[in-house]
């Protein structure tokens, strides 16, 4: 129960995103008493991953969220005369312009349900309120059939707010006409949902008829638990800060990873594989012998470019793309290096930045495989949870669905001294760490945000077919017009445990210039084709077919400086939400800096002691035991061939 919470902590962390979770783990590891709360019902905030029904509920929450009217602030009575309060927001404004499209045939019956009772991210964990836990554990099934047809959620900022209805269904009628693909006029009001499903020819039992590769919407619903849909699409650089931290802190034991199997490029309307490792170059059929040598030679130079200033000093002032032209590289090699290896664009970087990025890419190559990236099995959302687990092992206390109403500031010292939670309990602490989405309008009135455009697609095949259908690919599609940004495409196969068999989960990410759909739809159109009945006959469709698509914009607060917030006491620290970059260095850097402020001179996440070195007191709780009581069981069905992080240099003894 909430009033069972201790009334005093050293550090209170609000929000369970990656940086907050790392800091919570680090503080707990250093002996601080940590309370970690999140008003959401799941871990990770905008770093979370959802099952299919989970993402539908998430969409629904956003819809409901907008209806929430702030309750009468009972907490204000608790504020004493010598105190003032910083009210926290109960509304999450980080997600906008959510649009969902379903292309798979919707032969949906009332009784189609997600297999398996509990939803991973909704299982209430350590919430002090058992009734709430029970509530969330069994989401009513009618909820699911409702949200399955959703929806665009118009919000204040949505340009389409002039539409009459709040709910809009982008239900692509299965007519087989491409022209109707993005036609908003086919929208049907939510009330007609039942009719729609009646129109669809009913199958006797769709579950027993997988039919030749046809994935229906009901199959997606039924196998929804096979999906782990990330809100942010990131990868781990094999030698990035996060990998180092995972290894150093031994948190890596809570997660498993897979190597990205290939780097792709989109050039002249075709998807092709980028040879970047030695083995790729050797095997490449598209490069001539001389190209192979030139590419290897250039990449070898980039590995230690600092040692050869004579080769780049004269070009420091020009862009990296111009520099590449001066090197002995054919146009296709220049394209590969610029867009897929340095992952920059024509104008964005100068020579040094480009060389640095190339070096970083190559430096990460080969540590765990033939590409520089790792992907966590079950999705990026696992990572914050791993750190939370570490925090809990060292005594941190966790409360999901637990919101904080305000921070209490002592007028005299200008320091924050406590929080008041949703039950009105006052909890004292020395340090307060707040994820920035919890701040209210008042606090953030001067803050400017950037936006990230995101899209999540479920498709029926890979963008580049090869012998193996278990490929994990990253593809960079350069922005076409000036002012548009490069789109990063990450395609995940079922063996990453993020999507059901026979499908691929595709994440698109770019810096926003407009809404997510406006930014990303052109790229989606280039790479995919909407799923329609007639094309099933034609097995020779070149592009993968879209079964389902989601677009949304996410706020990027990563470069917001602390000074832009109004009146923050010095012991209130701000964590930003996810940034748009590919790696996680930003989150780790942020966590380490803030940790040093909270615990100066303490080691950041040192490795835990060996179990045999731990002296167990008679009266204190055994650490192993507390671990089980606090944290949900990790996913048990882990595929064999996954990478477990270890220091490979050490393993090779």
């Amino acid at each position, binding site marked *: 129960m909430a009033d069972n919470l201790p009334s005093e902590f050293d550090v209170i962390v609000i929000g369970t995103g990656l940086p907050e979770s790392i800091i919570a783990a680090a503080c*707990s590891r250093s*002996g*601080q*008493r940590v309370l970690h709360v999140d008003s959401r019902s799941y871990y990770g905030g905008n770093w979370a991953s959802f099952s299919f029904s989970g993402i539908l509920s998430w969409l629904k929450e956003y819809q409901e969220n907008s209806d929430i009217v702030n309750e009468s602030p009972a907490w204000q009575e608790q504020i004493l005369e010598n105190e003032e309060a910083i009210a926290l927001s109960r509304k999450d404004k980080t997600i906008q312009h959510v649009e969902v499209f379903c292309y798979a045939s919707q032969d949906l019956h009332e009784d189609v349900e997600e297999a398996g009772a509990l939803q991973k991210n909704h299982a209430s964990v350590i919430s002090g309120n058992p009734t709430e836990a029970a509530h969330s554990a069994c989401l009513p099934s009618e909820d699911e059939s409702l949200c399955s047809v959703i929806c665009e959620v118009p919000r204040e900022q949505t340009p389409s707010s002039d539409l009459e209805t709040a709910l809009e269904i982008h239900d692509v009628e299965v007519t087989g006409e491409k022209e109707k693909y993005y036609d908003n006029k086919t929208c049907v009001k939510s009330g007609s949902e039942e009719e729609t499903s009646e129109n669809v020819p009913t199958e006797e039992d769709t579950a027993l008829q997988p039919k030749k590769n046809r994935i229906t919407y009901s199959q997606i619903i039924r196998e929804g638990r096979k999906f782990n849909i990330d809100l942010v699409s990131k990868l781990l650089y094999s030698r990035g800060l996060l990998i180092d931290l995972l290894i150093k802190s031994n948190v890596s034991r809570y997660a498993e990873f897979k190597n990205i199997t290939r780097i792709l490029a989109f050039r002249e309307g075709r998807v092709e594989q980028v040879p970047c490792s*030695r*083995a790729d*170059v*050797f*095997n490449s059929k598209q490069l001539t*012998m*001389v190209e*192979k*040598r*030139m590419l*290897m*030679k250039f990449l070898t130079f980039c590995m230690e470019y600092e040692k050869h200033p004579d080769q780049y000093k004269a070009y420091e002032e020009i862009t990296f793309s111009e520099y590449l032209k001066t090197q002995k590289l054919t146009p296709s090699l220049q394209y590969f290096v610029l867009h897929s290896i340095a992952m920059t664009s024509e104008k964005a970087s100068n020579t040094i930045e480009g060389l640095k990025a190339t070096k970083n890419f190559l430096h990460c190559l080969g540590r765990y495989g033939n590409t520089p990236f790792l992907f966590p099995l079950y999705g990026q959302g696992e990572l914050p949870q791993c750190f939370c687990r570490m925090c809990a092992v*060292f*005594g*941190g206390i966790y409360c999901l669905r637990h919101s904080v109403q305000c921070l209490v500031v002592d007028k005299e010292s200008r320091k924050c001294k406590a929080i008041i939670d949703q039950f009105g309990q006052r909890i004292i602490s020395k340090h307060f760490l707040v994820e920035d989405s919890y701040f209210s309008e008042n606090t953030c009135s001067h803050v400017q945000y950037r936006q990230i455009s995101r899209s999540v697609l479920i498709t029926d095949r890979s963008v580049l077919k090869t012998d193996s259908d278990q490929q994990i690919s990253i593809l960079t599609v350069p922005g076409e017009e000036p002012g548009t940004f490069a789109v990063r495409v990450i395609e995940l196969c079922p063996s990453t445990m993020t999507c059901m068999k026979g499908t691929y989960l595709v994440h698109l990410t770019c810096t926003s210039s407009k809404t997510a759909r406006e930014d990303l739809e052109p790229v989606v159109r280039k790479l995919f084709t909407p799923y329609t009945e007639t094309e099933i006959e034609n097995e020779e469709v070149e592009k993968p077919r879209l079964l389902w698509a989601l677009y949304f914009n996410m706020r990027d607060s990563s470069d917001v400086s602390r000074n832009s917030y109004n009146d923050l006491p010095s012991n209130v620290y701000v964590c930003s939400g996810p940034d748009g970059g590919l790696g996680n260095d930003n989150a780790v850097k942020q966590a380490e800096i803030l940790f040093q402020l909270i615990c100066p001179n303490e080691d950041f996440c040192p490795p*835990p*002691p060996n179990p*045999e*070195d*731990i*002296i167990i*007191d008679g009266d204190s709780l055994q*650490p192993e035991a507390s671990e089980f009581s606090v944290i949900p069981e990790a996913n048990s069905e882990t595929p064999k061939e996954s990478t477990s992080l270890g220091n490979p240099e050490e393993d090779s003894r």
Partner: protein
Amino acid sequence: MHGRLKVKTSEEQAKAKRLEREQKLKLYQSATQTVFQKRQAGELDESVLELTSQILGANPDFATLWNCRREVLQQLEAQKSPEELAALVKTELGFLESCLRVNPKSYGTWHHRCWLLSRLPEPNWARELELCARFLEVDERNFHCWDYRRFVATQAAVPPAEELAFTDSLITRNFSNYSSWHYRSCLLPQLHPQPDSGSQGRLPEDVLLKELELVQNAFFTDPNDQSAWFYHRWLLGRADPQDALRCLHVSRDEACLTVSFSRPILVGSGTETLLLMVDESPLAVEWRTPDGRTRPSHVWLCDLPAASLNDQLPQHTFRVIWTAGDAQKECVLLKGRQEGWCRDSATDEQLFRCELSVEKSTVLQSELESCKELQELEPENKWCLLTIILLMRALDPLLYEKETLQYFQTLKAVDPMRAAYLDDLRSKFLVENSVLKMEYAEVRVLHLGHKDLTVLCHLEQLLLVTHLDLSHNRLRALPPALAALRCLEVLQANDNTIESLDGVANLPRLRELSLCNNRLQQPTVLQPLVSCPKLVLLHLQGNPLCQAVGASEHLAELLPSINSILT
């Protein structure tokens, strides 16, 4: 403090570790002792299996214990029912696998698995192949596992095509893999057997071209990776030449017959047998080497009885049959002639075996072009330079002579560590070229002066040479093989750094020897000259030994038969 763990200090840790170690050692030693005692007492039962598995499980490299296990298993084979044995084998295989996980490169473990599998009535080879694939997945260069895989593939009669596909997949992953390339070189000749070539035979052209493309991909990707270059050389390499008699020479004066062979052989009872037919009837002779030492040699000779050199007859035919080599050669000594011979010419391409050679010179030519292309991109790559030199040798040694020497110079500059090897290789090529030129000119005079030679080779090809000029080189010795030059009359070796004269012995016709400006220190190094009966003129000016007081007297005493010794 809340949540703070109590952790042992490093001192306590060290102590705990030490105790644990001591405990382990005790267990290990007592188990070992028990095993040895039981073995001595002949108690080869299952308890020995249990004990040895405890030790081997931790340290699979204890070879004696594997032997113990084999003894036990052999014993149990006789005692147990087939079902019990099957269970035993199953456990043993599982145990072996766990040992391999401890040390995937344990000789003893892999060997034991071979032994066990070859004793099974119905071994499950498919599972073994799968095991190899798994271990090579972890470490694609584990040559122990490669060895075992070849054993399994042979036993299970896996089609070579499948194994070739397997090597493909591993080369695709990482081409820097000697084992995989080597396995290809074993599989390809099996897959494409060519008539008239042994297991080292050539490949059909289409296969060869495909392999060349593959290996070119490798060395264009990483020219510093040796494995690809070695495979490249194997692809272009030529099979060992057929055994042959290269030259047969009969001298009436010396009553001597000399033969040279395509490879060094050892003639004598229990080794190689040579048959000599004189005028079609066998003649028993004593064979010896030119330098008198009994060891494998290219050149063998024998004395002929006067009867077989009778000058009354119009001619004598001499035929030498090399039984093991399935080769023979015949020569005729005509009436009134001092000597007769028969030989293969060096101008025949077979004679100087090139490192590289294939049926079609177009293939070599195109390889040379791609290597030159690569060399332009990588001017300092030693493997590329060396391959270019070898390709040029194989294509046309005389045409490319000048270019080859330039490449040698570059190569020596980029690879100073191997300068001496390169000097020797260069010397060898220059000697070959000079021999070719001599034979084209159809003379018996060989000029090898001013060539910067560091070593003499192919001396067995020079059986008929009468005049040899070695002056102005970097030779440090006149090697024993020089004794093969049975017709040599004049030898000039001025201006070298010669210290020893082992080869200038038993040269029956040597008249004149010039050794000016060398490094002959002691008169005793001239000792071998005593055995040259016709030596009358010796030039020794500019050698340290001339500085000694009374040098000429000493020399005259040492070499009484030489008329004039110039010091």
